[in-house]
């Protein structure tokens, strides 16, 4: 094997690796190829088309490079071997034809295909449709405020949507620029202060999909995740109905004590809980906190232990987040945790 050949084989091999490895790796990952909605499906299709074209282009062009080198290759320096310089001019025509064919005609054909694909795909996605469910998502530092304007339900860092229904995420920011990204469902859309954007997408299969902030937004950009939970329409309706009803209030002594702690301490200064006097909007709405999967925007799983740690000093877990450390007596903390976990 010549050194020349050795150079392009790994590269071509790498491409094969991608083709094989990408879907396989996607098992645990929020992979854009593991699509569960029309936009992600379209884009995955675009990718496989581009991948095929790219692999062909790479192999052909890199092959030409390698062949060009291998023909009459020398390892000495020109001055050492005294090789005469070949003058041009004898064959200008074939050179020009080669440059035309490879540098202009072939790219134009490929780019024309891609241009058509771009236009048709763009036309098919993110279109306003009848029967959309509006979800107002406001990007905060560093969490997501989620509201359902039709039913008045408020939550945070978790977006429940019905499968098969067009969704219109009304995206805003009242602080810095963020970007809303759920790789398995759709591409990104930024939340830009002073501007309202609409991300329209659908989920086609029930499941839980990881979302992330994709635009660098400061200290805790890395810990600004959320999840999108796509339910069957009936399940979604039940979920929504449970949150729009009157609510039951604390059901046990411990949770009642926890509610008192919540209202007495700093908690109520920033957080809201439905049907209580806590209505502040600086921090996430906690009305259904007990049913949420994560604490701190997909930082820790929502367990009693994690929650107690978070309340005591979230700064050690997610430094720089806007929640101050809260010092409580152990029994107060227990009651508070019990209360929050009881909110479903």
């Amino acid at each position, binding site marked *: 094997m010549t050194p020349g050949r050795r*150079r*392009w084989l*790994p590269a071509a091999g*790498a491409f094969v690796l*991608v083709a094989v*490895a*990408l879907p396989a*790796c996607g098992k*645990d*990952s929020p*992979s*854009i190829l593991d699509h569960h909605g029309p936009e992600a499906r*379209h*884009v995955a299709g*675009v990718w496989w088309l*581009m991948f095929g074209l790219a692999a062909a*282009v790479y192999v052909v062009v*890199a092959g030409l*490079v390698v062949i*060009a080198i291998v023909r*009459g*290759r*020398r*390892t*000495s*320096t*020109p*001055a050492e*071997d005294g090789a005469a*310089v*070949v003058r*041009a001019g004898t064959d200008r025509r074939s*050179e020009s034809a*080669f*440059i035309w*064919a*490879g*540098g202009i005609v072939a790219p*134009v054909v490929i*780019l024309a295909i891609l*241009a058509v694909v*771009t*236009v048709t795909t763009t036309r098919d*996605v993110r279109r306003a449709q009848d029967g959309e469910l509006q979800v107002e998502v406001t990007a905060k530092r560093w969490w997501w405020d989620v509201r359902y304007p039709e039913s008045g339900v408020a939550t945070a860092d978790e977006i429940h949507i019905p499968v098969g229904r067009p969704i219109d995420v009304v*995206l805003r920011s009242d602080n*810095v*620029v963020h*970007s809303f*990204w759920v790789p398995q469902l759709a*591409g*990104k*859309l930024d939340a*830009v*202060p*002073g501007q309202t*954007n*609409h991300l329209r997408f659908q989920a086609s299969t029930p499941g839980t999909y990881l979302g992330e902030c994709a*635009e*660098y937004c400061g200290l805790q950009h890395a810990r600004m995740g959320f999840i999108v939970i796509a339910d069957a329409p009936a399940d979604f309706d039940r979920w929504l109905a449970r949150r729009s009803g009157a609510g039951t209030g604390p059901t046990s002594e411990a949770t009642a004590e926890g509610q008192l702690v919540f209202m007495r301490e700093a908690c109520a200064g920033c957080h809201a809980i439905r049907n209580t006097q806590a209505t502040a909007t600086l921090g996430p709405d906690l009305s259904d906190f007990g049913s949420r999967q994560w604490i701190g925007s997909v930082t820790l799983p929502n367990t009693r232990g994690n929650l107690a740690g978070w309340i005591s000093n979230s700064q050690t877990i997610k*430094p720089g987040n806007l929640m101050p450390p809260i010092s409580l007596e152990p029994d107060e903390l227990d009651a508070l945790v019990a209360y929050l976990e009881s909110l479903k």
Partner: protein
Amino acid sequence: MTLLDRVPTGKDLATLWEDAPGIPGFFSSVDHKRIGMRYIYTSFVFFFVAGLTALVMRAQLTTPESGVLGPQLYNELMTMHGTTMIFLFNTPVLAGFGNYLIPLQLGTRDMAFPRMNAFSYWIFLLGGIFMYLSFFVGKMPDGGWFAYPPMVSKAYSPGINMDFWGLGVVFVGLSTTVGSINFIVTIFKLRAPGMSLHRMPIFVWSMLVFSFMAIFAVPAVTLAAGLLELDRLFGTSFFVPALGGSALLYQHLFWFWGHPEVYILFVPATGMISQIIPVFSRRPLAGYLWVAASLVTIGFISFGVWVHHMFATGLPPLAMAFFSAVSLIIAIPSGVQFFAWIATMWKGTVRLTTPMLFAVGFLLIFLLGGITGVMVAVLPFDWQVTDSYFVVAHFHYVLNGAVVFPIFGAIYYWMPKMTGRMLSERLGRLSFWVMFVGFNVTFFPMHILGFLGMPRRVYTYRDGLGWEGLNVMVSLGSLVFALGTGITLVNFLISRRRGRPAGDDPWDADSLEWSTTSPPPDYNFASVPVVASAHPLWDQKPLPYASSGSDEETRGLGPEGAVERETPITSGIDTAPEGNLTIPEDTYLPLMVAVGLAVFFLGLLVNAAAVGVTGAALAVVGAVWWTWRTEEDLA
């Protein structure tokens, strides 16, 4: 044999052109070769610093939930890595090669504005130091290298951190602008007789395109950073949405510079490749005019693609479709260049020396970076991959692979001319292979990480997302890549002392810099060469030199008419001698003005009016003194 032996001299050029010895000469020299070398050395210091920050960042990202760096320090290093690579390495190192090589390749004795040249270097150096002062006060910029407001506005970034960045960018931009003006006038007015535009080396063409692009693009970033600093320091509201400002305005301004900037870096890198490939293929570049036209075309089209950095900001679909199409089209001139290089090698016989290896490595890397570049121009695909690791992979293939590899090739190719000594071929080849493998192991897996949903600029990530193995691979690769660059550094240090003498023309190359000694004398050429070909050293054997004419216009062509430091001025198109440009003596004025401006910016930074006024006064006095002595007096 020196040039002086070859041509009878009237006055001793060596004495006329000599710098003052020692430290005064160091600070007052206006010799384009000394300045060019300083640019290269200084920017390589920044290159290695930026490389170290990258390694530290990789240490943090090797494992999930790692605590090597906190979020603040990670974000600071991330910002400084990007800022340093773009503003303090890539741009100035190319300016350094341009500074050193352009007068030599054009057959003239210095740049059109030698004092401006010294000035632009001092500005670059002081600007770099200015930004790095932030390390010493522990307040490094942390807003990312494109620093989007409102995140970097006073409300969300109250510290001094981003002021180092904003003021530094404005300051360093000044250096690029001044340098570009110098290149343009030098290329149009100082070419040797006979060197019409279609006989200029492609590297000169590429620097001409670099300069024009910089002239039109840099004002945008200067304004972006400048208006941001007005917001931060003086309380204006350009980017404050609540007061009618616009966050998107900043993004438009930044990327109106930012995308051309990618090509500002890439075009000279391809210019280097177009010089290296023909020499080691033993034949002239195929399609010279095609390549030159491609460079110019890239320059124009690159101003129409900036919005593809903003595809996810919610712009109207029709506008995005337009920019998507233009972003696809820009692939064509690059394709033309690529096939010109293949044709050159195909028709020639290739010598795989170290510079050529780097050129071939460039081809294989740039091919992939170019392909992924076309992919991200496809609007719906870009929505998925933008701001993910796929884009990190893409721009490292383009800005690291397709710019740093040509620069390393250029080091191996031109250092013998600059220092007079050859670099070791054995270490050079080793360095190439280690870098090439390390590069691909580092950056190729990033494409896949992007597909797997890893967003850009995260200081950490959770376990269990399938990103762990690839991140380990990336970190290992980055160590290998760093090792490869280190080998070249060692190679350079050894060759400075023990390298084989290079002789005038170790590669049997075609352009004029190889006709003079290595390193060239202070005056470059005693007699100006007379050019009749795009490859004078191949086609014109022996190379003819001009001698001084009897009239004022042609007096400076040869050494006989030398009365002071002079180089001939020629008309822009047909290179007829028009007169002589007096090259100024050593002077401290450029340093004085640069220091004055640096003090002025420092005053703005620390909000000390007295400091600012002192600096401004120093700069103004220097500038007045400088301009007072224009050429009426020197002629």
